[in-house]
């Protein structure tokens, strides 16, 4: 069968270049290992400086509350808040806490006692997070200095579903699967057609009585297998090493992953038909996938907080949908029905991209 011949040829290409094959299999594994540990969204050990103008037992208690929280690490005790500036400029601290003179008296006589936190706005993401975590510490402290009969009678029982222990890895590792798969499959396929164009073998193929669609399908099938293998490796590593829960059905995840590969590979194909040389194809594939798939897909940055335009762009990135699928299956135990809209989104995206690729391919050979 002609299609089979093309598929076999493409497999040989992959298998006969052991270095590439090694890279394709090992790199994702290495990436999960590194990033699974390294990307941690929970604030930890952020360096701060403290100016304590009160030197009382209470002010020390507050400082202790900051350092004991695990979020902050007090690196310096400068004499006054003006010294923060130099520490910021040298990048030694990210935030500065100032406890006012008379703090100990104020907290038993005044309604409100101001505590100042200065953050380095040049790294505003951290700055913002520092403020949020500080707020929580102050609130906790407030509750402790309120006399018993004035305590809030409302007791909040917070419960965290799907990620009970608030592990960052449970969020990040499934995200890595989505991002790495998208990049690797788009990269792999983007090279294929461009390479045949460059070496002149495309002409050879087109001269054979094969339909362009057969060529395209034949070229893509091996990469589906390869990408799927990568997916399994990453997911497997995530489950084994990072103890990411697997609450849903493996079949649903496998189906979802297969569907996800469709728009990813189609994107790679589209890029390769648009490029005359491998170099151009690779540059395009990298540039198009690397930043948007990390920044706009919800991998790290919450989509809900983005401006409308960006939310729209995020809806044409395949990783956006797959992130919901894989996190849904692993963490929430979501079933097929509830993930159907995401799968549909992927199918629509894939079909549009593939349609464009086939059209472009036909234009080129006519």
């Amino acid at each position, binding site marked *: 069968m002609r299609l089979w011949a093309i598929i076999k040829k493409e497999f040989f290409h992959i298998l006969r270049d052991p270095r590439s094959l090694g890279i394709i299999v090992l790199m994702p594994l290495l990436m999960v290992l590194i990033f699974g540990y390294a990307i*941690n969204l*929970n604030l930890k050990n952020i360096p701060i400086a403290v100016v304590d103008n009160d030197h009382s037992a209470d002010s020390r208690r507050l400082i202790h509350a900051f350092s004991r929280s695990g979020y902050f690490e007090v690196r310096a005790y400068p004499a006054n808040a003006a010294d923060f500036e130099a520490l910021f400029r040298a990048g030694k601290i990210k935030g500065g806490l100032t406890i006012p003179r008379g703090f100990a008296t104020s907290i038993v006589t005044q309604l409100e006692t101001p505590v100042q936190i200065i953050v*380095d706005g040049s790294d505003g993401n951290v700055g913002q997070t520092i403020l949020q975590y500080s707020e929580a510490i102050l609130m906790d402290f407030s509750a402790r200095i309120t006399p018993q009969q004035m305590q809030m009678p409302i007791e909040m029982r917070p419960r965290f579903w799907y990620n009970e222990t608030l592990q960052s890895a449970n969020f990040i590792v499934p995200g890595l699967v989505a991002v790495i798969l998208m990049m690797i499959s788009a990269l792999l396929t983007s090279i294929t057609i461009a390479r045949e164009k460059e070496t002149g073998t495309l002409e050879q193929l087109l001269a054979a009585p094969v339909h362009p669609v057969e060529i395209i399908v034949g070229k893509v099938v091996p990469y589906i297998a390869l990408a799927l293998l990568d997916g399994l490796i990453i997911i497997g590593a995530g489950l084994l090493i990072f103890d990411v829960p697997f609450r849903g059905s493996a079949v649903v995840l496998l189906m979802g992953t297969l569907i996800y590969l469709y728009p990813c590979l189609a994107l790679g194909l589209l890029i390769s038909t648009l490029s005359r040389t491998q170099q*151009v194809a690779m540059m395009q594939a990298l540039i198009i996938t690397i930043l948007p798939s990390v920044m706009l897909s919800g991998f790290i940055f919450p989509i809900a907080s983005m401006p409308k335009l960006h939310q729209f762009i995020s809806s044409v990135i395949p990783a956006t949908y797959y992130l919901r699928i894989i996190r849904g299956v692993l963490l929430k135990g979501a079933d097929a029905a509830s993930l159907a809209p995401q799968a549909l989104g992927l199918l629509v995206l894939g079909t549009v991209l593939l349609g464009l690729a086939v059209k472009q391919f036909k234009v080129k050979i006519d």
Partner: protein
Amino acid sequence: MLKHLLIKEFKQVFRQREMVAIIFLVPVIQLLILGYAINLDVKHVRLGIFDEDRTALSRRIVDTFDASGYFDLVPTENENSASLLDAGQADIVLKIPRDFERDIGRGKAAELAVITDAQNSNTAGIAAAYTQELLRNFWEGEVNRKLRAQPALRNRLHRLALRSQAYYNPELVSVYYMVPGIVVILLTVMTTLLTALGIVREKEIGTLEQLMVTPISKFHFIAGKTVPFIIIAFIELAVALLVGTLWFGIPFRGSLWLLAGTASLFLLTTLGVGLFISTISNTQQQALFFAWFFMVFGMLMSGFFTPIENMPQAFQFLTYLNPLRYFMVIIRAVFLKDSSAGDLSGEIFALALFGIVIFSLALLRFRKRIA
């Protein structure tokens, strides 16, 4: 001889219209899109409230959350907390139990259940804390209302108030720190990949063999392969500076010379990595994958997405091997903080060291021979 290498390289780049677009247009577009308001802020948290008490007090709680501007209330008729969260229609669910008002009236502690979708541990923690804070504010409001007549008692209510201030970027505008960061990433992608692919491509086509029998020295060859990209990178940096300051209105407070100098050091590292990759790859595909790994590593471990301090110790050490880490700090510091070379001496030294080491490694490995 170098002149001819440079002319050739420029012609090859500029004759490909797609390449020109990729090098000059795409980065600007990405900067314009990605520079905006993409951040870790937790906003528009979707909150479902199940008010089983349906009293004046419980309704006031609902109103407090509604008015906070922080939560988007989602309808809860015909739903339960599991169905809302499972379907992803809400991020957080608040349950006000029956007899809530009555219990409080009797001085009994009333329990509120707050269930958070914690897939994202960070946003979940922040949203839960914010819920708690709103509740506390609400309670103090209630107490204040009731105690207006009894100032003596009122004086016994105490709290700490956060007075926050942000240096260099008082409004914590995200473009101020995102745009410089994205510039670093774009520069890395361009220079590493162009250098690596440029050389490996000549290997693949066979022109490299032809060049190796000419008397050009390997230094000339390498200069010919890197200088064009240094120039292109500086043009990109200049364009990015213009876009950043004129379009996004980011203040540039530091020294242009310091930025240019440190950028040169940074380019030494990325070009060095590109060169090094070209010496360990036989095909463009291999080069692409090595470059890809370096870029993803560089990007995610640079402190751009998450603070390096959050990482386990061993992985923090790993980031010392990442040139992006240093330039990320430098470019933001020069832009916004007017940091001096002295302030940044550690980063500058690390960049220089990394650049020299990787460049030397590449030079050592680069042979004017085939095997």
